[in-house]
């Protein structure tokens, strides 16, 4: 068996199996074997690869934008808003965009 195990192919995961472990895979919580299997599947699957992209983007978005906001920044923006609305900051007529 030892000889033949060298040539034993890794299990091919189907889509359902990949989706079951996708979150763990994206979080780096799967072992190397599973990670390799998932990666191989994603590189070939037109259904699972986009799902992976979307979930990765969700993770990234929360990682960047999901943290609490510094109250001093909010305070500055509130003051800025009120100064714009009361004319203390004049909006130039040639402002682009």
């Amino acid at each position: 068996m030892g000889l033949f195990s060298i040539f034993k192919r890794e299990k091919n995961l189907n889509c359902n199996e990949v989706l079951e472990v996708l979150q763990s895979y994206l979080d780096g919580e799967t072992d190397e074997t599973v990670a390799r299997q998932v990666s191989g599947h994603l590189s070939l699957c037109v259904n699972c690869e986009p799902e992976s992209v979307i979930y990765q983007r969700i993770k990234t978005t929360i990682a960047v934008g999901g943290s609490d906001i510094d109250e001093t920044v909010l305070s500055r923006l509130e003051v800025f808003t009120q100064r714009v609305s009361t004319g203390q900051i004049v909006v130039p007529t040639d402002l682009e965009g």
Partner: protein
Amino acid sequence: MRTSPVMNCVVALMESPRKTEADTPTEAGSNASTDAFNSYVLPELPVLYRTARSLSRSDADAEDLVQDTLLRAFRAIDRFDGRYPRAWLLTILRNTNINRARKKKPDLLNDPEATFERSQDFAEHTGPEEIVLEPIFETVVLDAFDQLPEKFSSVVRMVDLEGKSYGDTAAALGIPVGTVMSRLHRARKRIRDEISAQGLDSTEAVLAGGGDVLFGANDDSGDGDANRNNNNRGGL
């Protein structure tokens, strides 16, 4: 108060900050505009800033982006019908961000003719009076994240924001690792479902929101896709 270099160039600060709203005319010339602008904008500042942060390279850039957005919004306040202020502001924010990226990287597109044509197309679709409401991936995600029950959001926060392992998250919350995985899966599925509901499933839409975007998937923002707009209004 901190202002960006851009702001210093284009904004004239008026004296007498102790003036009240009653004796300080707005650009639009009415206290009604002042009140309306404040009522539309102030509640949305956290969403605007968080979205800007997800589109920017730094917190300072994000704050500058919000300030530019507010200036453009105030300029357009008289043409805003008052419905869906969040979607209105976020659309201005996105257009402002695209415009800033274009100005920062004017040579990114090597074909001068194509660049000119696209910039003309962009200019035609980004005036505040022609704003088309469309969902923004980052905002949909962050809104959905905010609406998660605490037991779900706490897991997502620890894993995605704090970079904790499943084991550390389980230990911190006093729950089994399997529960961490289950909650994480369900939480992300809820966010994922909201993305579908907003019509943001395409890879183009997903990838369009990054800070490097020059011309995103919404180049055709003037096409008036009713379905997407309605989804956006319902969701935002």
